[in-house]
Every structure is written in structure tokens, then in C-alpha cells.
């Protein structure tokens, strides 16, 4: 259970960073909604797990938070990507691509060996 949880936390962080890159500064609820939409509701994520993940990213300096006004003038905490976050996003995205392409070659039916 535990290693899966770590992987899950890692991917969640990556999704958050990517979302913030694409959409700019966003509040917690908005990030949660967007992740749900983008992943096609396959990851029925408990929205509550997002907040500790956001905090971790903030503690590590990849995102920064600021209180601001939402669309309907509600006071909300907005998160935005920092420069370090951008670099980390690029790095992790590249790692994921490499991992998936290697696995892809393993897992696709052996076309070379036919």
C-alpha cells in the first residue's frame, strides 16, 4: 500500500504543477476540479488529499500562495508556480516520459520477435 501511496502523492504533485503551469494562479478548489476534469474523472480523488499535497509543494518552494479574490469575490488562497517549480515540472515530466517509453517497449506485444 505504502509505495503505491508515494507514487500517487508524486503524481498528484506533478498534476498540480502542470495545472498551475497551464492555467496560471488558481485556488485549491479550482485545482481539484481541473485535475478531475483533465484526468477524465478516472482518478476519483478525495479533494481533501489535495491540501496536504499543496502544503508540501509550498514547503519545498515549488509553489507560492497568496490570498486574493475569487470570481464571485470570495476571499480565497491562490497558488502559483515558482521558477523552481517550473524547473521541477520540466524535469519530472521528462522523467515520466522516459519511464513510460521504456515500459511501453516492454509491455507492447513483441512486434520485433514475431
Amino acid at each position, binding site marked *: 500500500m505504502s509505495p503505491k501511496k508515494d507514487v500517487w502523492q508524486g503524481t498528484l504533485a506533478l498534476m498540480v504543477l502542470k495545472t498551475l503551469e497551464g492555467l496560471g494562479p488558481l*485556488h*485549491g*478548489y*479550482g485545482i481539484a*476540479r481541473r485535475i478531475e476534469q483533465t484526468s477524465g474523472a478516472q482518478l476519483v480523488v*478525495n*479533494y*481533501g*488529499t489535495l*491540501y*496536504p499535497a499543496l*502544503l*508540501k509543494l509550498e*514547503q*519545498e*518552494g*515549488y509553489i507560492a500562495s497568496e490570498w486574493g479574490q*475569487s470570481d*464571485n469575490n*470570495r*476571499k*480565497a*488562497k491562490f497558488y502559483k508556480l515558482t521558477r*523552481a517549480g517550473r524547473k*521541477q515540472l520540466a524535469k519530472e515530466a521528462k522523467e515520466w516520459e522516459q519511464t513510460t517509453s521504456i515500459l511501453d517497449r516492454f509491455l507492447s506485444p513483441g512486434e520485433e520477435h514475431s
Partner: protein
Amino acid sequence: MRTLRGWLTRITGLFRKDRRDRDLDAEMQTHLALHIEDNLRAGMSPQQARREALMKLGGLEQTKQLYRHRRGLPMLEVFFQDLAFALRTLRKNPGFTIIAILTLALGIGANTAIFSLVNGVLLRPLPFAYPDRLVAATTYYPKGPFVVMRDRSRSMEFAANSDATELNLTSIDTPVRLSGSSVSANWFSVLGSRPEFGRIFRDGEDQPGKDTVVILSHSLWQHRFAADSNIVGRSIQLEGENRLVVGVMPPEFRFPSPKTELWVPLRLDPRDIGDYWGSSYMPIIARLRPGATIEQARQELAALRPQILAAYAWRMPDDSFIKSSVIPMHEALVGDVRAKLIILLGAVGLLLLIACANVANLLLARATIREKEIALRTALGAGRWRIVRQLITESLLLAVLGAALGLSVAFYGLSALKATLPADTPRLADVAVDARVLIFAALLAVFTGLLFGAMPAIGASRVDLTKALKTGGEKSAASRTHGLSRGLIVGEVAIAAVLVIGAGLLVKSLWNLSNTNPGFHKDYILTARITPNESFCAEQGRCQSFYRDLLERVRALPGVKEAAAVNGLPLSGAWETIPADIEAYTIAPGAHVPMLMERIVTPDYLRIMQIPLLQGRSFTEADAAPSSQRVALLSKSTVERYWPGQDPIGKHFKPRWLKEWWTVVGVVGDVREDNLTRNVPDWIDGEMYTPFGPHSIAGRGPEAAPAEMTLLLRTSDDDHLGLGAELQSVVAELHRDVPVSQVATLSGWISEVVAGPRSTASIFSLFAALALALGAVGIYGVISYSVAQRTREIGIRMALGARRQEVLLLILRQSAVLAFAGIALGLISALFLTRLMATLLYGVGASDPATYFGVAVLLAAVALAATYLPARRATRVDPVVALRHD
């Protein structure tokens, strides 16, 4: 790197929790509000919208909790919570807290004080450069062998120092006797010590003619020379000779002894055969050269031995110095006191165990009171481990508070220890509470807290909820912990028994030592050291007439019945050794040459000291005349050794390096010269007495008597105080420049000799007394508590007709069982443990039955006394009240 930043940020998350919690609340509220709006827009009813939003969040409280865990350091926060709770609990029970803290302060403080001693004397490295490269020889050597070793050793750089050299400082108003050391020219550089000002001795300064230099100690420079900044380059007059001051050592350099006030070079003069090869035996130190090991050094010393023997001015037996080896210098310095300090450390450790047992018992008693509280917390969801952690935090807090108070106990205790231990204990002056000692105290506090806290905590946390939450639940806890409590008491009593037995054996030893017959009579004798310059006696007969006049005038003083002089008092550690050839005694091949110690005395000495004359005659004034025959007296064991069964009167012996023979004219009783348990040291074979005059052997030069003597006065009564000053003036009248020093009564000297065993016995006895007191308090506590628990039962018994007597006996029997079990266990343990202190005992076996029996009786009495009050309280129980008590 990022994770580090993450951790550091989490530490800041420990602070300003209120504000952060408010922020978190606000963020959560906004999240829910936004979600609910969306839901409403999607068509749900308000209740549905809210419920769906909460479910999708995954629970508000859980989310907040997860967030908080990520924000701070949960483990640390829980610990602080436990700590705050523990502090509150302790404050609410001041009585318990105070007793526990005082008990722990005593135990931890005493241990810290003794550990400071062990650290300062045994553990700390010597204050020299690369001290683990310094070694020392296990036997003393005279100057000649030292020079051979110095010149030829490849693995070591040898240096030597005299044990103590005493010199007169003249050229100031009152001549003063200073304690110093003669050292080889390379001695300071072998140690690697640097002077505060000036320089150390150079090579070659220990040759005659080049050795008129001196180095001062820091305290001498301050006290006698007023910290004169121009002291280097000035001359001072020592023993009538001018010496140039070339350096001053720093204040922390106190070697070879704290009493050393100055250093002069050794005089290495091969022409003075007696001194060079025969009589000045010195301790030898060395520094291992780079790359050499101590094993190589040992082998080399063995290889040098035949070369040393070959260099001797006369033939030495083949096995001379054969037992000599090389040991680390640290070992040589502190080896003697190591056993004693370790034993004290063991004893104080046992005391701490008793303190822990007492505090554990206190905790056990409290645990039953708190059972309801613990049951409640368990019912509310606290895991068992959480409760145990909480209780252990309390114990640790107690231990830390006890240790903090214990530090002041340690400071005072250490000063008291330093004052009690004999002043010649090596390195004693530098013992202090330093960083290592503080770390030890901290670790000891943690260890102690866990020791006395663990079991009560684990026991208390095991709670049967239903029983505990009902009324009358105290009984269940009480019965559970009762067994543990009793076990602790038995253990305490056993340990106390061991300590009291140890103390008893030491005290008995001390008594035996103090009352051994030293071979002479010590009462009513005043002694003083008279030390004219050595050059004084160069002129023939001058010393003799000086002392003759002195003795005459001193006899005329009021209160003085008799007076005499001797070259050194028994047990003073000062003696001359003469390698001798003994008539009609052939040295067995390979055996060592007979070494005799020489006491140079005036005729009245033997009578004043009441040393019995067993055969022949004693000395008279005539024996001191230059024209008389060379005569000597030998001690009984000496004649028995070399002329067994023969008449010693008229036999002869001579010093190896001289041609003349001495004649034995009398035999006297043995005297304890070395220490109270031994006549002469291992490496000396006998004792001789020679008359003060031209025919004494170890005088300076072949025809001169020694210059420095100890004066003895037998007085008619105890009033000695005035005589010291009168003695000074008598001497000053005779000669201006002669210092009088070490004025003391002979019995005072003798009691100095037992200072070591006396200090051990008193410190150990203190621990034993404390152990007894703590044990008594422990028994009192446990029995009181038990009586309180059994109030109902006692009430029932009395209601059913039991008399006060029976109740009393009931309680006493309960205590008696514990006490006897403890005493029995203690006596058996003592049989094994006291064997470890056998080296400290004299005249007493480690299983001395009288002591064991006495201690058993004492402990039984103490246990009885401690039980008496609670037992009496039990008899006062009013059955009516008791039966209502629940």
C-alpha cells in the same frame, strides 16, 4: 535540498498555530463555499449541495488533521503535549514530586560527583603533548643506568626526575625549605611542556658545572617573587649556591607532584660513584619515538638490561632489574588509586539503584490512584503505547528535574570529596565538573528515568476497563502492583545490606591499620625537619657540632624531656638505600644484591621511639668519634634473614662501593618504615642503623654526616604548640640560614599515613548511611501504603475480635518477611561482591562473620523501626470507620 527546506519549514510550522489554524479554516470554508455554489448551479438542493461537497472533500476534520500533520512535526508536537501534561500532573501532586526529586537529586548528584573524580583522575588524558606516547618504567633506576638507557635506546627517549628534592631558599629574610624536583635536561622536552616565560633546560645542563640553573613553578613565582616580570635572568640562592632563573612554568603544570615548586637539573657526575650507581633511585619516564610500539619498548628495555649491568661500577647480580618493564605513563601515575575509585563508583551506583527503587515505588502507589484517569483515557481511544509514552515522559521529567538539582549536590559533593581525599592523590587538584561530566549527568538522568519509570508505566497502562471504571476499582491495581512493590523493597534492602557490609569491612580495616603496632611509640613526640645547606657539612665535623649544640639547647627547653635526630622518620617515605656485601652470606647465583635501608641516628633516638633493643648494645656518643670503630645496628628481620640461627653480634657488612667494613653491635626490633602493613618495601631487604657522625654511610661524601635530619623531641605533656616557634628561634640562634620545616607531632604524621584508607572508609560509610536512610524511607512508604490499602480488611478483623496486638503483629510480619528476604539476599550478594574490594582491606577477611552478623542485626532493627509507625497506625484503626471506607 528541497526536502531539507521542507523540513525546516515544518519546524516553523510549530509556531503561531492559532493564526495558521485560522487561515486553514478560512481556506476550507472557501473551498466548501465554492463547491456548494457549483452544486447549486448544477441543480442540487442546498442540503444536497452541502452534503455532496463535504463528502467529496473527504471529511472536514480529517482533511484539517492531515494538513496539520504535514504542516508541523507531529512527533515533536505530541512530545510537547506529553511534557506539558506531565508538568501539570507533577505540580498537582507537590508532595510526591518533591520527595521524588530530592531522592533523585541525591542519587544522580552523588554519582555525578564520583564520576567527576573518575573522569578527572582516570579518564582524562595527561596534560602533555601526545600523552599516549608517554611511558614509564616500572622500577626505579639510579643515575648510571638511566644514562645508559638514555644514550642507547632507539625506541624511546628517556628522561628522569627525582621523586622529591628539597632545597633551601636562602638570600631572603627567613630561609625557607622548598619542595622541588631534580630532572634530566631533556625532561621538559620529553613531556612536551612549554614554559610560560623563559626556556626549559637545554641538553647538557645536567652535567656538573653547567647545572646552576633553575626553573620556577608559577605559584612559587607569584608567592615568593611577587610575580616579578624580570625574574628570568635573575639569580636566586639555593642551598647556598647561586642559580640562574631561566624559566617559569605555566600554572597548570604540576608535575611530578602538586607540591613541586621548582625544577633543577640532575647532577650526572660519574665520578661520584656512590651517588651515580648506588643510592639515588629515580622514576624513569620516556616518550616512544615515532613508529615505536610499547611492546617494542618493553623488548628493548629487556635487551638493554645486560648492557646496563655491564656498565656498573661493581658487579651486580644477573637478575637485577629483571622485573622491570614499561607501562603507559598514565597507568604508572594512577594505577594505585584506580581500584579505590572504581569501587567508590560501584558503591554510589548501587545507591542510585536504591533511589530508583524508592521512586519506582512512589510511582506504583500513584499509579493505583490514577487508575481511573488512565482507564478513562483508554476508553476515549488512547492507545496503550500512547499512555505508556505519557507516563514515561513524566518519569523522564522527574529524572531531569532531579538531575538539575543533583548538579548542585554534585558541586558541593565534589568539593567535599576533594577535601577528604589525601592531598597526594594523583591529579586531584584538576578534578572538576567539566563537559564530559555534564554529558554523563544528562545521560544518567535519561537512563534513570527509564529505569524507574518503565515498569510502573507498563504496569499501569494494562488496565481492565470494566473493573477500573467501577467503584472499588483501586483494589485491582493495588494487587497487581503489590508484587512489584515488594520485590523492589527486597532489592533495596539487599543493596543496602551490601553497602553497609562494605562500609563495615572498611571501617574495621581502618581500625586495624590505625592500631597496628608500628614498632615504635608515637605519643608525645614533636618532630621538625632541620635542613642546613648541603655544603654546610663539607667542612669536617661542622654538621656534627651543629647538631650536638642543637640537641643540647633543645633539651633545655621547657617541657622537653629528651631529644634526638634521625635522617628520616618511619613512614615518611624517605630513606637511603645501600647495596651491601654481607659477611658469610653468599648471594645465590642470579639473586639480587642485598639492599639495606639506612637510618642515621643520634644515640637517644631508639630510646625516644621506644624501639626495643633485643641484643647487644645501642649507640653511645663515643661511636660518633672519627677514631672509633664503624658500628651499626640491624633490625631483627635483617639478621634473621642473613644470619639465621647465628649470633649476629660481631659480624660485618659493607657498602658495595667502599672498602671499609661495619661491625654489628646490636639488634633492634622491626619498625614499620614503608607503610603500616609492611616493614620495608619489596625491593629492600633489611634495615640498619648507623650513628650520626663520620661513619654513617649515605652522608654526602665519604667522611661527612648528612646535613638534613629530622629532630625529635619527647615532651612531658600534650602542649606542643609553643615549642614550634621556640625551636625556630633556637635554630636561628645557632645559624641564621637553616630552615625549620614540617613541624608536626609524630601521631599527626602517622594519622596522615592512614589518610587514604580513612577517606575511602568515610566516603563509603556515607553512601552506606544514605542507603540505609533511603531503605528505611522506602520500607516506611510501602508499609504505610499497604496499611492504607488494607484498612477495610483490618477493620473487619478488629470487628471480628482481633486485638491490637494481633494487628500489630500482622503488619510487622508482613514487613519482616520482606526485610529477611532482603537481608538474606544482601548477605549472599555481599559474599561475592566484597571480594572485589579485597585490595582495600587489611586484617579483615571479605567474609568476616562478625561484620556480616552485625549488619544483619542492624538492618533488621532499622526495618523494624521503619515499620513501627505504620504498624501502630494500623492498630488505631476504628472498625466502624474502616468498614464504611471504600
